[in-house]
């Protein structure tokens, strides 16, 4: 089977609001950079297919796929939308290239939440119309709060532990120029915050940001022609959560466990904590990385591992070493590709941490926001 590599990436934004650019202009800028990074490819000539990951309601357009081709240079070429997180675009590109029928595929994802006037209503529309909406929950994060509480109670995780994770993560983001929301924060100021919805306060929820990210993915044959430093997609899988949340044990992330098992099996990984160098985990809520570490068998004692700084620079395995979504913001469906972007930069040696060796293999995780838990996990290596 063909190996699949990322050979170019580009982005625009990671700030909000962004009134100076339309979403199509943002994509155009990101695409220009990605094509240049991929060895100055010409999308009209060199690309076999284009994939966009987006959701109509976020766009405010009933068929958002219509507005995809121009800014990517993909007019009258194969193009389609995956209605999901942008890591699912990578899953499709990976499968398409492995058939041998496609050689070069462009992936695009963007989010422009600053132009959404009715975010709360849209999130409510993602809930089951028969079983959840009639409850008329007053806070759009109520399901995440229930999940956070179930997990924290089961694992004995207090607000102090969560705070410890949050303040470290926000600090790590200071090294990342895209991390507009990174900052130094004391544990006291975290604990003094009012709840948005108990047990989550403002610093536990990633703020929204506008961004567009484009990636060029290629077969091994093409990748080796165009770059000396391809970043390989070793394995990738997505596992569906359920929109009927009453079915689920909310204290354990089953979708992350399943997706993780699939990629570990495909990449022959037996001990992820030892065999993976860094993790880029969805951090749109502070408790999610901790849940995922548990589900992936990377940490059996979250509380202890957080307090012992296992996931910091001198620890065993790097976790969101340049800050996750709490620092970078939440660009909606572009979150997964934003995690790929930062992993790509680390694997290429473009982002380095003083005193730490460059990672060779990074795990990427992204799940739907805010619910259900549908999760995609990929393993990248150099």
């Amino acid at each position: 089977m063909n190996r699949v590599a990322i050979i170019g990436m580009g982005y625009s934004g990671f700030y909000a609001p962004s009134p100076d650019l339309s979403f199509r202009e943002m994509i155009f800028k990101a695409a220009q950079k990605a094509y240049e990074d991929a060895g100055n490819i010409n999308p009209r000539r060199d690309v076999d297919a284009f994939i966009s990951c987006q959701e109509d309601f976020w766009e405010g357009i009933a068929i958002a796929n219509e507005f995809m081709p121009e800014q990517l240079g993909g007019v009258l070429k194969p193009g389609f939308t995956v209605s999901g997180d942008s890591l699912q675009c990578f899953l499709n590109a990976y499968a398409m290239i492995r058939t041998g029928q496609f050689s070069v595929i462009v992936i695009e994802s963007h989010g422009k939440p600053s132009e959404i006037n009715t975010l709360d209503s849209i999130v409510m529309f993602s809930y089951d119309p028969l079983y959840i909406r009639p409850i008329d929950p007053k806070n759009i994060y109520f399901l995440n709060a229930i999940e956070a509480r179930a997990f924290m109670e089961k694992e004995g995780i207090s607000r102090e532990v969560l705070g410890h994770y949050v303040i470290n993560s926000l600090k790590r983001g200071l090294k990342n120029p895209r991390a507009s929301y990174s900052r130094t924060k004391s544990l006291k100021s975290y604990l003094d915050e009012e709840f948005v919805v108990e047990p989550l306060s403002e610093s536990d929820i990633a703020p929204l940001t506008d961004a567009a990210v484009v990636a060029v993915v290629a077969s091994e044959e093409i990748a080796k022609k165009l770059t000396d430093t391809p970043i390989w997609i070793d394995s990738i899988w997505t596992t569906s959560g359920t929109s009927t949340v009453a079915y689920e044990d909310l204290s354990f992330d089953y979708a992350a466990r399943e997706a993780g098992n699939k990629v570990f099996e495909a990449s022959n990984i037996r001990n992820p904590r030892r065999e993976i160098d860094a993790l880029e985990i969805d951090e749109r809520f502070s408790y999610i990385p901790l849940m995922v570490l548990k589900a992936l068998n990377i940490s059996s004692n979250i509380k202890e591992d957080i307090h012992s700084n296992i996931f910091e620079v001198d620890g065993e395995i790097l976790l969101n070493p340049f800050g996750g979504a709490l620092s970078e913001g939440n660009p909606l469906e572009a979150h997964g590709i934003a995690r790929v972007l930062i992993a790509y930069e680390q694997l290429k040696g473009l982002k380095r941490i003083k005193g730490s060796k460059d990672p060779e293999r990074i795990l990427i995780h992204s799940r739907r926001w805010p619910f259900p838990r549908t999760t995609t996990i990929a393993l990248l290596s150099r």
Partner: protein
Amino acid sequence: MRFNIYVKNRVAVVGAGLTLFRRRLLETPQEMVWIASKKALEQANMDFRDIDCVISGSAPDTFDGVHMKGEYYSEGAGSYGKLHFRVFVGGGTGVFVPVAGWWMVASGLCKKALIVAEEKMSSAADPHPQAVFRHIWDPLIEKPLNPNLIWIFALEMHRYMHKCGVSKEDIALVAVKNKANALDNPIAQAAAKITVEDVLKSEPLVYPVNRLDISPVSDGAGALVMVSEDVARRYTDTPIWVEGVGFALDTTSWTNRELAFPVYVKTAAEMAYRMAGIENPMKQIDVAEPYDPFDYKELHHMEGLGLAPRCKAAELTKGGVTQRDGDLPINPSGGLLGVGNPIAAAGLMKVAEIFWQLRGEAGKRQVRKPVYTGLAQAWGDLMQIGTVIILRR
């Protein structure tokens, strides 16, 4: 793009199932998906537990009134804990879902995939589901004009009639044929024995479009089971192989295009033909289900697919070539005009019909000539995308 004739895993369709297509089905989207999936699995001699991947498709979320609706309805296909994603290319989605299913199986990532398409249009928007289409336009350039979808199809139909010298009467023959074909389809919503006169005298909507030129608003779901070759041989003696897939997305600026000919359908078809080794589609395709939400679109798409010379599809229709007992049966299912148009499910219905035709299991709808190779096609977005799949027995 290279054309790899050595795809490691050949992909077969081994089961298909559809719900009724109706204007107000009482079932929820999840229930409709479950019904279609169950039928497809029964035909494949499988159960939900046998499936490792679910690939789904549906058109605008606004119809079902659920944001991220793929996450919602897919539960009816037993997606929980399995690989699932939703693809979406507007009206072209129904044929595109098995295209995506093809690469998931051909790549080796999935062995047994359930392919589902769903649409629940009737409960959307007030006073009519058409209102959803107010929000498909360019927000700066087109939306202020408040266009309606039927208006732009009226423009396209008019342009086609003018450029090709086709009359309203010629076009109405398609509606007459497809609604009559649908009389033999047990799921059909708009089957009828009508005349050209009936079409011409039906309520005018936007000239030249009359009420009977258009397919109805529908609810419905469809499902296929797609498997790799080694699995197919274990479950059936008559697998139907996916031999070609194609899709192409044209510019958003539909006003800048020649509307008389769907170049995006031609491009998509060429991709699928190259993969399937088809050089002369008029001779090598035995039966076809081109997308027919409007009667003129069947003619338009036949020409885009190379199943008729340019501007000659109406002549073939008039000459009876496209009838079920004709030389090139077109839409033997009854098409969207006769069976109904729950958008994504309608496209998948076309693939299911080709599957049954090639297996000789279409019952009263079975075409008279022996069939070996069939084609299904859909179209969507802003008159912009063509999706094509070629099946062979």
